């Protein structure tokens, strides 16, 4: 009841209170007045009636005594002058009815015909009725009894009239309360209503509104003042919050990171400008209400982000530096370094996740390149080491096979030896490629016209590959000259061509193209210094490669070809060659569309190109035996044996040493006795270059043939031209050995050609 009352308006409450109080007051007054008046009226009636009875009794005693009935009745009639009296009777001394009168208009109730003659004075007052018996005595003698009956109906009627008045008063109060309520509303509740309207307007966001404070004061004025103070504080607070929000937006829009937060259901709530750019949603505010499904991410990435959100929100722990891929709205795939932090409310419950990311695509690519080059380097070292030892062994096998061929006349046995020789040469060719990849074969640095090489390679290919393959040349570079080893470069071009041929088993087009490529500024993703480069493109229209294949393309022994068809060394050798020429190679391929290899080589402008190929046709083995004393130094026994036999076969006198110290000791005894020293570069304890220096010191004019498992055409050329030292890569054929030795021995002795302190470092494995 009371809570209901409270929900009413002030005006209604005041109306009800006025009504209630008035009713209560009136009811109290009327009840009290009625009780008092009732008592008073009864008492008055009682005493009046009793007095009247006494007087009437005394008065009528003579009429009774003398039997004057009519007179007595006339006397009784006079009693009705008192309005309460309704009937009167006189009984004689024997108790018999002597005279009886009833007020006119009252229905006569049958009165008692006889009463007790000794009836004492009695007053009986019941609810609405008063009855009095009064003895009639004269001179102490009793003559009879007077009976009077009176009704309280008269004052009952008075009380009824009172009740009616009360009700009338209530109605009047009701009627009066309405205007009073209106006045009360005007005086009390209207200012409150006005204030409520203003507070609602303030709550609605209009912070300029203020309540008018009445001059009179009072609670409403105090309330208005409080509301104004509250509005001031609210406005100040909102301004502060707004400024803080603007500052946050400004800061967040200008930090080089994407920032966002999501609610518990991974729905975006807020994001900064960088995030909006990445997501392609225009203004940052557009993010509100979106989910990852609404953004241009890839499907599998969305799942990853969701799991990430859930993990952070479930554990309540931040996760930092999670590297994840992302497809930008513009279609670019980038890498992000992301951190997600759970957001808590005041009770410590997780309500969402705050995320931020930076674009680490460049770093990831650099790392990938670094990893790749480190891997290549490691593989290169491994391959180089293996190749060196392998070449040594091949040298032994090849030499022995050739000597065997010279000794054998049985065609069957000769064919066996031929088989060994062929296998050795094939193996050697493989090792050469491996060494090219490992860059153990040093680059012969001469100007090379790449266009000429391309034309030659194309010419070679026209005759050797499937006729359904068309070779096209778009050689547009104005200056095709690079510094390098033309043989290695040609090999590289041929390897690319072979790769292209194998990619087009049903025919197609192989295009060689060149053009000038300028790198103006150093870029993080490029390993190349700024400068002018020759860009060589080799494109095929073959079956293309998957991304996985592309990533492993240049690894040695990685091949997609059937067993026996490919060695897995071709492209590895290309890679090594390009690297050793200071260039880069990359590949673009699409499955079903084709592959394009791109090579960038630094241009060597204004240099004359060396058109002469390094390959010299090797003459037939001569019949004539050679002369001279050769000091052979090699740590590999199989090589020593084979080489010695080959040298002796050629007619040389041979002294064999297995290591540097022994060779020097041998040479020191009689330096002039040796016409030639054949020196292996890679030896334990004392290296070939140290031995070479010692020999030169002892006898500078000594002719030296350097042999090495690290096959290097360039090294050979430069050694010969500058220092009068010949180079022969292992394994070598008997004929090659003979020819080289003859050339060397033909050279004039140049004692001071080799300056002190210039070791053969260029030949040392790096």
């Amino acid at each position: 009841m009371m809570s209901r009352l409270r929900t009413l308006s002030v005006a209604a409450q005041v109306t009800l209170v006025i009504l209630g109080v008035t009713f209560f007051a009136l009811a109290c007054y009327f009840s009290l007045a009625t009780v008092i008046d009732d008592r008073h009226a009864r008492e008055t009636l009682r005493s009046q009636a009793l007095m009247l009875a006494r007087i009437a009794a005394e008065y009528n005693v003579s009429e009774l005594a003398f039997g004057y009935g009519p007179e007595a009745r006339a006397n009784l009639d006079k009693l009705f002058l008192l309005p309460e009296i309704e009937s009167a009777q006189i009984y004689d001394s024997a108790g018999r009815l002597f005279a009886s009168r009833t007020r006119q208009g009252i229905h006569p109730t049958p009165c008692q015909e006889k009463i007790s003659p000794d009836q004492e004075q009695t007053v009986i007052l019941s609810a609405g009725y008063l009855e009095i018996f009064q003895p009639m005595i004269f001179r102490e003698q009793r003559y009879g009894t007077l009976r009077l009956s009176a009704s309280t109906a008269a004052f009952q009627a008075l009380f009824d009239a009172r009740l009616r008045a009360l009700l009338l008063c209530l109605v009047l109060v009701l009627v009066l309360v309405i205007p009073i309520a209106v006045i009360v509303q005007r005086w009390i509740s209207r200012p409150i209503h006005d204030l409520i309207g203003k507070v609602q307007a303030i709550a609605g966001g209009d912070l300029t509104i203020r309540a008018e404070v009445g001059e009179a004061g009072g609670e409403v004025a105090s309330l208005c003042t409080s509301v104004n103070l509250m509005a001031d504080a609210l406005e100040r607070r909102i301004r502060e919050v707004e400024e803080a929000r603007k500052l946050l937006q400004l800061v967040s829009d200008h930090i080089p990171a994407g920032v966002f937060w999501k609610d518990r259901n991974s729905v975006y709530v807020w994001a900064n400008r960088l995030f909006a750019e990445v997501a392609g949603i225009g203004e940052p505010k557009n993010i509100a209400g979106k989910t990852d499904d609404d953004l241009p991410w890839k499907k599998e990435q969305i799942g990853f982000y969701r799991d990430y959100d859930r993990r952070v929100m479930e554990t309540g722990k931040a996760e930092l530096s999670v590297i994840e891929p992302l497809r930008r709205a513009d279609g670019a795939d980038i890498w992000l370094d992301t951190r997600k932090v759970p957001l808590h409310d005041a009770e410590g419950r997780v309500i969402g996740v705050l995320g931020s990311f930076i674009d680490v695509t460049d770093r990831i690519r650099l790392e990938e390149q670094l990893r790749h080059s480190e891997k290549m380097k490691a593989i290169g070292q491994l391959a180089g080491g293996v190749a060196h030892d392998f070449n040594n062994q091949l040298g032994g096998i090849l030499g022995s096979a050739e000597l065997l061929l010279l000794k054998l006349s049985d065609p069957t046995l000769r064919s066996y030896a031929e088989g060994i020789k062929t296998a050795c040469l094939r193996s050697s060719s493989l090792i050469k490629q491996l060494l090219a990849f490992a860059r153990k074969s040093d680059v012969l640095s001469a100007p090379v016209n790449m266009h000429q090489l391309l034309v030659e390679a194309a010419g070679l290919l026209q005759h050797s590959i499937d006729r359904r393959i068309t070779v096209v040349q778009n050689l547009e570079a104005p200056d095709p000259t690079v510094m390098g080893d033309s043989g290695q470069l040609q090999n590289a071009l041929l390897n690319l061509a072979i790769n292209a041929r194998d990619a087009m088993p049903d025919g197609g087009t192989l295009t060689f193209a060149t053009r000038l490529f300028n790198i103006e500024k150093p870029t993080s993703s490029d390993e190349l210094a700024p400068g002018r480069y020759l860009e060589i493109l080799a494109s095929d229209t073959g079956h293309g490669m998957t991304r996985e294949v592309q990533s492993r393309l240049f690894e040695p022994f990685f091949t997609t070809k059937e067993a026996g068809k490919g060695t897995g060394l071709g492209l590895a050798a290309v890679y090594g060659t390009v690297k050793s020429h200071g260039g880069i190679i990359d590949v673009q391929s699409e499955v079903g569309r084709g592959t394009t290899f791109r090579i960038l080589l630094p241009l060597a402008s204004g240099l004359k190109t060396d058109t002469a190929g390094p390959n010299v046709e090797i003459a037939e083995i001569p019949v004539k035996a050679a002369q001279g004393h050769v000091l052979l130094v090699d740590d590999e026994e199989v090589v020593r044996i084979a080489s010695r036999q080959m040298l002796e076969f050629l007619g040389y006198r041979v002294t064999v040493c297995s290591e540097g110290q022994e060779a020097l000791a041998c040479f020191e005894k009689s330096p002039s006795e040796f016409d030639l020293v054949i020196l292996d570069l890679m030896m334990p304890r004392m290296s070939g270059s140290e031995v070479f220096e010692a020999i030169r010191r002892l006898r500078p004019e000594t002719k030296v043939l350097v042999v090495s498992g690290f096959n290097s055409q360039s090294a050979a050329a430069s050694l010969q031209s500058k220092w009068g030292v010949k180079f022969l890569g292992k394994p070598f054929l008997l004929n090659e050995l003979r020819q080289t030795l003859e050339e060397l021995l033909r050279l004039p002795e140049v004692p001071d050609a080799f300056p002190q302190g210039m070791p053969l470092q260029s030949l040392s494995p790096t």
Partner: protein
Amino acid sequence: MVSGGGFPEYQVKAEMLFRIAEFVDWPSGTFSRQDKPFVIGIAGKDPFGPYLTGKAKTQKIHGACVEIRAFDPEAASGSFHLVFISEHERERVPLLLKKIARLPILSVSDGEGFSHDGVHIGFLTVDERIRFNINLSTATQSGFVVPANLLRLAARVYRGDGT
């Protein structure tokens, strides 16, 4: 009580006689001695018969026993308290009155006009009801005090001025 229509006239008058005697106040000292009876004298022929005598035996007046005697004007009239003068004694009335004048003897007559002539109270019949006149003047002269409620019942009250 005494005016009932069904009762013989003199029974009613006897009753009234008793009531009147009771109502009227005798001069003070009249009933000072308790052993002295209230004496009613009958002048002339007694019309009441034994009814009055019987009544006198059972009722008292002013606390005294009642005695009925024949009224003898020659005898000591001072011993009577009330004298009833019968209708036939019309001629003797003035003499009787003379005898009892100034004495505290209440005179009651049975005939119209007696009271006009000086009898204190005279019975008469009006509308077949027995009523009485009072000569207040003579009664007062005789020392009687007639109460108002008795006067109120009188058919006529003579007050000495002829009313």
